[in-house]
Every structure is written in C-alpha cells, then in structure tokens.
C-alpha cells in the first residue's frame, strides 16, 4: 500500500535530480578531503620517511586507476543495456577494490613497524588511508548492493542510476586517491 | 528632514558622552594606549552608524504606522540608484578607514618594537593551573602561586610564552597592559610591551596575569599578581632574590 508521496519534478526528471544530489554530496565530501590533506603539513611537515614502501604505493595507485576503467566500462555497458558485460565489469571492479583494501592492510602492517600512529607521519598516514579505505569499502558495498539488484534482470530500466551512482562514487574515491598518493608518498 | 535632524542631534550627544566617559581606565603600557585609542576611534566611528539605525527605526515606527484592519499598500519603490550607490560608497569608505587606521596602523604600532633589544626578557610557561616565570639572564625564577610578578617601569619587556608539552593551551593576559597571547604546547609565542605606569595588584585588579583560554577546572584561579615598580627598585629586588 503506497499512499500518495509527493513527487514533484515539474521540469527536472528524477535522474537529473539524483545526479545533482550525488554531485552535491561529492562536493561536500571533497571538502572533507581537502581538510584531511591540509592537515598533513601541520602534523608532519613535508618530509616523507625513507621507510615508506614506494612500490606498494605505486601498485595501489595503478590498481585503483585500473578499477576506475572497469567501473567506467560497467557504466557504459549499463547505458547500452549490455547486461553481461556490465556484471563482469562490476565484479572486476569489486575484485580490484578488495585487493586494494588488502593492499592498504599490508601498508598498515608495515607502517606499524616504522611509523605507528603515535608519530607525526603515522598519524597522517593512518588517518588519510583510513578515511580513504572507508570510502573504498563503502564503494565495494554499494557496488555489491547494485550487483545484487541487477544480477537477474534483463534490461537496466530504472536501475540505471543505481549503477551510475555507484560508479560515480567509485570514481570519486579514485580522484581522492589521486591527491592522497602524492601527499603521502611523494612530498619532500 | 526631521529624521536627519534627530540623527545629527543623537550623534552629537552620543559622541560627547563617549569622549567624556572614561571607559576602562588608563593602560599601563604604550601598546595598551594604542589599543585604547583604537577602541575610542572605532567607537567614534560606530556611533553615527548606530544612531542612524536607531533614528530610522524610531522615526519609521511613529511616522509610517498604519493601523486598522484594512490592508493598505505603500508606493512600490523597488530601489533607488542614488541611495544604493551612496550607501555603498559610505560603507566602503568607513570600512577602509577602519582597515587603515586603527587596523593597519595599529598593527604596525604594536610591532614597532620587534627589532629592538629588550630591557628585560621574561620566559613564561603555563601549566595547569599555574604560571612560572624566568627572568632571562637574571637567575631568578618565580613559580609558586603566591609569588608576585615584579616588572620594571619605563622598560621594553619581552615575554616568550609557551606551555608545557603534555599540558593544554593557556593564554597569557595582563588586562592592565591590554596584551594577550596564547601559551601553546610546543610553540613559543612572544609579546612586547613598553611599561609606562607604576601599579600594583592590590590597588588595581587589572595588574594581574590571567589565563584567558579555558584550561579546565581551575582556569579562573590561574592568575598571578603583577607589580610594576621603578627600574632601580626592580634591580634591587633582583639582587635580593639572587642573594
């Protein structure tokens, strides 16, 4: 029993309203990441310790960028109603995301020995990667929900925004990492 | 016209009242005097603005009141180019005056002693809920709560202020000097004053060091009495302490 729920939209279709809402939220979240990044200089200056694992950092970056490509392909497939390709790409994205989370886990394991959270650089590293990996986890979870919803249907229909939104969120996480990576690994 | 007259009248009265009042007693430092002058100037500038608002509201409420149940519309004046323009110019001018003097000039005045050699340097450390002082090069330090911070008159005194590492933020404030700077753990801040007046906590309560940044339970009791004395007397006191 669904009673009349005001559904407004005289001139804007729901897809556009949803997109606008998501973009506004991303703007807001971007503001949070700017706050995070700006605190780096305060807490540990611009120096990066030598012990940091450059190979790991670069691999994480490559992994996340690649997952953005698969996410992009999932969205394109969804728009073109290519359901099987979309599902594969969603799975691939999630897989790379999970791999990324494990990568960060390994990064933390190493970091605990060289710069634990009670040091300046450790504080920055754990906060930045911690907040970011939370976003990644939300992304994986969202993609999972979307996959769960679209796994059996034939055409994308009303679920287009679900795919698009999850993918946009994933790209946003990627953009955040684009700035976190040099901030943590490359500054001198 | 009437409104303008009332405004001028109110402004003149208020300005005279301001100039005849002694708002906060004399400052005991040169820097404090700058600050007091800046305060008076800002007051003098603010009064005409405030009386303008008051006059307008009062006048309008009496003059343009329309009682009765019938709704009556006023003439639809949506904007007025000249009024908006001149209002913008006047507020901008006022703002610029405030920015330049006391703003910019005031900051320069407060900083003009930065390059000079200080007559006396005091290292101040805050910790909950007590201040400790160390006269640099004089081998005297004050720590106990009952001690009095003794300072020479007619001298440039430089305070280096900090807080203990595992402590919290305090703020070093001597109301009579009008000076205030935070004591932050891990950071040393400084402040210069030129003392100009002899005074004593027992005569004027503003001769005290007061913590001005909330620091927990005994924040309100974190103060030290201050005594400003003649330089000779100060040197004598230092010698007595060192002995």
């Amino acid at each position, binding site marked *: 029993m669904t009673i009349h729920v005001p559904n407004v939209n005289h001139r804007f279709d729901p897809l556009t309203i949803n997109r606008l809402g998501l973009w506004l939220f991303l703007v807001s979240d971007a503001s949070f990441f700017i706050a995070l990044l700006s605190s780096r200089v305060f807490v540990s200056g611009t120096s990066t310790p030598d012990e940091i694992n450059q190979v790991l950092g670069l691999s994480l970056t*490559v992994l996340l960028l690649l997952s953005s490509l698969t996410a992009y392909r999932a969205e394109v497939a969804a*728009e073109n109603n290519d359901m099987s390709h979309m599902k594969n790409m969603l799975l691939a994205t999630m897989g790379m995301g999970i791999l990324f989370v494990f990568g960060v886990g390994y990064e933390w394991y190493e970091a605990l020995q060289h710069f634990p959270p009670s040091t300046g650089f450790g504080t920055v590293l754990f906060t930045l990667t911690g907040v970011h990996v939370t976003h990644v986890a939300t992304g994986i979870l969202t993609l999972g929900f979307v996959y769960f919803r679209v796994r059996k249907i034939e055409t994308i229909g009303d679920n287009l925004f679900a795919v698009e939104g999850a993918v946009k969120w994933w790209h946003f996480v990627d953009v955040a990492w*684009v700035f976190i990576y*040099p901030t943590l690994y*490359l500054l*001198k | 016209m009437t409104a303008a007259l009332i405004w001028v009248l109110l402004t003149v009265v208020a300005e005279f009242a301001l100039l005849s009042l002694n708002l906060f007693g004399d400052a005991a430092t040169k820097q404090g005097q700058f600050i007091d002058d800046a305060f008076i100037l800002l007051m003098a500038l603010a009064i005409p603005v405030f009386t303008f608002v008051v006059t307008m509201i009062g006048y309008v409420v009496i003059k343009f009141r329309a009682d009765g149940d019938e709704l009556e519309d006023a003439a639809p004046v949506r904007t007025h180019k000249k009024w908006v323009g001149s209002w913008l110019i006047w507020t901008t001018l006022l703002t610029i005056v405030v920015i330049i003097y006391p703003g910019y000039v005031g900051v320069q005045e407060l900083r003009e002693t930065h390059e000079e050699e200080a007559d006396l340097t005091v290292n101040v450390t805050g910790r909950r809920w007590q201040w400790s002082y160390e006269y640099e090069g004089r081998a005297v330090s004050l720590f106990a709560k009952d001690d009095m911070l003794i300072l020479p008159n007619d001298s440039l005194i430089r305070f280096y202020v900090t807080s203990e590492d595992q402590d919290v933020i305090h703020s070093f404030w001597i109301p009579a000097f009008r000076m205030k700077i935070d004591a932050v753990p891990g950071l040393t801040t400084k402040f210069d004053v030129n003392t100009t007046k002899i005074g004593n906590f027992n005569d004027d309560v503003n001769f005290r060091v007061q913590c001005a940044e909330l620091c927990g339970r005994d924040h309100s009791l974190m103060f030290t009495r201050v005594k400003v004395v003649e330089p000779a007397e100060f040197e004598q006191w230092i010698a007595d302490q060192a002995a």
Partner: protein
Amino acid sequence: MHRTLQQSLKLGWVVIGLLAIMTVAEFIVAISFEDTVMLFTLLLIVGLAKAWLIIQYFMHFGQLWGHIADVWRGTLKDDPVADREED
C-alpha cells in the same frame, strides 16, 4: 555528446592511458626534484590534471553541466517586472 558503445569503450582506454602516463610523470617528478615548493606545485598540477580527466570523462561532469548552465541562465534572465528595478 552521444557516443556509440565502441567509441565509449575506446575513450576509456585513452583516458586510462593518459592517466598512466601522468602517474609515471608524477613519479619521475618526485624522484628528480628536491625543492619542496617546486615539487608541491608540479604534483598539484599533475594531480589536478588527473582529477580533471576522471571527473570529465569518467564521471561525465558535462552531463550535469548542461543543467547547471540552464539554471545559471535563469539567474541572468529576469521577468520584465523585476527588471523595472533601477539597478
């Protein structure tokens, strides 16, 4: 800006290629520059460029921009009544 499936997929490869090049560039910059301010500026530029690529081509910011532009025009275009305001 409507693309066919093939064009879209190709675009994805182009963008990821550019991103890869920039990541390498970023890394080389970080190894070769010592000066903090210089390094910071260069990293910021590369970062902004990468972010722009993702936002523009992966997140389709332009898609939204169409609507924002409509809204923006709305602020400039007024009805004749309000236009009577001497501005």
